[in-house]
């Protein structure tokens, strides 16, 4: 079928009252960024839906990109025709003929915003229903749960026909909920948390702690590659690498083993908050899941969360590991996440970390360190890069590899 446009229906934002304009504007921006590679498209954001004129662009490729943009409830490839009854009948029949081999029942669903059109909704439904039944007698009309619903929209400029509705990514347009920092380790959970944050409209920036030589360049590259995997939902994502070696060494040197992890985490959270404050972030997101490991018990959360009053949002807090993995596989971060490089969370992990650390003790041990100076030096070494979906960090120098094969 030669589709001419794609009709995009908005998600929850339709109900958002006065903010509507901002939401639509943001979605328009995100869609434009996501479809930037297709130069022939025309995107028209309207109040109730968005129209994308394909102008000959391959619609499968466009729809693949669209399916990753948050804030879209669903979309339909459609055909735009002049407001002519014969042309309408002919086009409807062509579409149904193409779909007929896979279906037994059908329904015509007409909407009309142009009330000056010569036929009304019921007349169009009946006319097209009869016409299709006469020409394709193997199909029967059925109002409830038909195999095919042919949607006909009579608007002021033209008539639009579509037969397929594809589920969008749902959620809210990224950016409409403000900005936050995501603490990205490189494991399975934090990319999933990032994905879920974006789904609710949050623009995220990645905060990643790296500790050479305790963590390798490949662990850093892995975190960046994971960021690239999440970039298609927004276009680009900022990656903030925070040097953590000195803090980790100092903590190891002066804090009793049982509290190593708790104190390290307090520093990480403080640094993430500092980044948020510097960069107009409103909250911290992370991949903690209640009870999954020692640092993620409620007691640990109390002892770590103590360093800030900024909201900490844990999108996967109540998910089982399997549920998290299911999403990781869906967003294609799982295979990367399981690459076996040490990250900031696994080094110096004591054999018996406290699962129920006490807040007073955590504060006490931490007070032994010159926290302000350590933090200042870490922040001075921060590096920020912008990551695109097509960036490659884990594979290097493919030319010499390809040349020998």
């Amino acid at each position, binding site marked *: 079928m030669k589709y001419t446009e794609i009709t995009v229906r908005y998600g929850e934002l339709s109900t958002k009252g006065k903010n509507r304009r901002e939401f639509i504007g943001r979605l328009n921006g995100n869609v434009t960024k996501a479809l930037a590679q297709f130069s022939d498209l025309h995107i028209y954001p309207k109040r109730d839906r968005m129209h994308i004129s394909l102008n000959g662009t391959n619609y499968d490729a466009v729809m693949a990109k669209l399916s990753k943009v948050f804030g879209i409830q669903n979309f339909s490839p459609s055909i735009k025709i002049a407001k002519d009854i014969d042309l309408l009948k002919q086009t409807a029949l062509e579409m149904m003929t193409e779909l007929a081999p896979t279906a037994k029942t059908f329904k015509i669903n007409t909407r009309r915003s142009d009330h000056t059109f010569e036929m009304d909704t019921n007349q169009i439904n009946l006319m097209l229903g009869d016409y299709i039944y006469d020409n394709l007698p193997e199909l029967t009309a059925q109002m409830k749960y038909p195999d095919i619903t042919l949607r006909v929209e009579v608007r002021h400029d033209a008539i639009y026909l579509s037969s397929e509705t594809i589920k969008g990514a749902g959620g809210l347009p990224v950016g409409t909920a403000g900005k936050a920092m995501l603490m990205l380790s490189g494991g399975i959970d934090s990319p999933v948390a990032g994905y879920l944050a974006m789904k609710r409209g949050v623009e995220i920036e990645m905060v990643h702690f790296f500790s050479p030589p305790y963590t390798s360049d490949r662990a850093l590259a892995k975190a960046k590659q994971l960021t690239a995997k999440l970039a298609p939902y927004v276009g680009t994502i900022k990656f903030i690498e925070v040097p953590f070696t000195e803090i980790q060494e100092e903590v190891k040197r002066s804090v009793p083993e049982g509290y190593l992890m708790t104190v390290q985490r307090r520093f990480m959270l403080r640094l993430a908050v500092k980044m948020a404050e510097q960069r107009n972030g409103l909250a911290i997101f992370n991949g903690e899941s209640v009870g999954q490991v020692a640092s993620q018990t409620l007691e640990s959360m109390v002892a770590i969360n103590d360093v800030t009053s900024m909201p900490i949002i844990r999108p996967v807090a109540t998910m089982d590991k399997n549920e998290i993995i299911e999403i990781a596989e869906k967003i294609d971060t799982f295979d990367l996440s399981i690459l076996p490089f040490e990250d900031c969370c696994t080094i110096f992990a004591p054999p018996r970390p406290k699962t129920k650390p006490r807040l007073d003790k955590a504060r006490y041990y931490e007070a032994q360190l010159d926290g302000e100076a350590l933090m200042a030096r870490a922040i001075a070494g921060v590096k920020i890069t912008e990551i695109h979906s097509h960036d490659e960090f884990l594979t290097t120098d493919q030319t010499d590899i390809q040349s020998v*094969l």
Partner: protein
Amino acid sequence: MIYFDNSATTKIDPAVLKTYDAVANDFWGNPSSLHGLGDHALQLLQSARQQIADLVGCSAAEIYFTSGGTEGDNWVIKGTAIAKHEFGKHLIVSSVEHAAVLNAAAQMEKLGWDVTYLPVNKQGFVDPADVAKAIRPETVLVSVMAVNNEIGAIQPITEIGEILKDYPTIHFHVDAVQSVGKNLWSRVLPERVDFATFSAHKFHGPRGTGFIYAKKGRTLDTLMSGGGQETNHRSGTENLPAIAAMSKALRLALTDEVGKAQHELNLKQQLVDFLSQLADITIFSPINDNFAPHILCFAIAGVRGETTVHALEAKGIYLSTTSACSSRSGDESSTLKAMQVPEKLATSAVRISLDDANTQAEVDQFMKVFPEIYQRFERMNGRG
């Protein structure tokens, strides 16, 4: 020199040797090492695996590198036996398999397994009905080669696969060593095949390297226990120069596969036409759809195969007494024996095995010198 012994081994392609050399010099890190040199080698290893997977038409996770055909055959048979011994101790192999399969099966017999050796008909083919008859509840493996190395018979892999569709738990192994680049792909690796064995030096790659295809979801125990290479299925530091060279060799072998196979068939046709005119020659590899285009096995009545090989060598033409692997043992051909060819005739068999590098001039030269040798043997046997 005229080399007509390509089923024994092929000459390494200069471009492939160049790859071997470049990888040995520039990618000498151990793919298991954590540092950059190791990582660089690992990436090459995975790219080589991906290229082979793309050429075979499977996923990279289904390709495992080995030391060659013998290891591949041993691995699939013994690895299946170890993995599945709780489900039954019965193997089915054809009686015309390569020694790597037959002797691995014989070892399993020593350990108390039952092995059914499928017979072949007078032309050298397994009857799929015999496979159906041999299957028992405790059968765990069926192993049948794609192209017989001695006479070039293409076994009915597709038909056997159809039968095995009713027995989804049985592992189906195909020794595909002789079938690469002969435009037989769809007949060698139909859907139902679970494992297939390949060897690089049969397609202008280096010795000592090969790979198996192992279908995702099929369990195969390891023969080489150790450091966990090949996702813990085949330990031992990867022979990266040879693996990369094999990957390239496979790509080159499959380039214009149809044209190459046609060229070999054309040469074989001329040789068959020529030899058929000679009264005391028996041809075991006729020209038809069920024989590979590159293998031609024939016998001169009353002349030991060895003698024919030496007589032709004196004229600069190299061929084999059937399978090179067993030709030094002096035994008669095991395939011809299974075909119930009389022993005297079987020991007279020799094998020409062609390659796309063989030329019309070489075939002409063979047809020029062969009558002289033939007449001499005829006189010796009192026939001429």
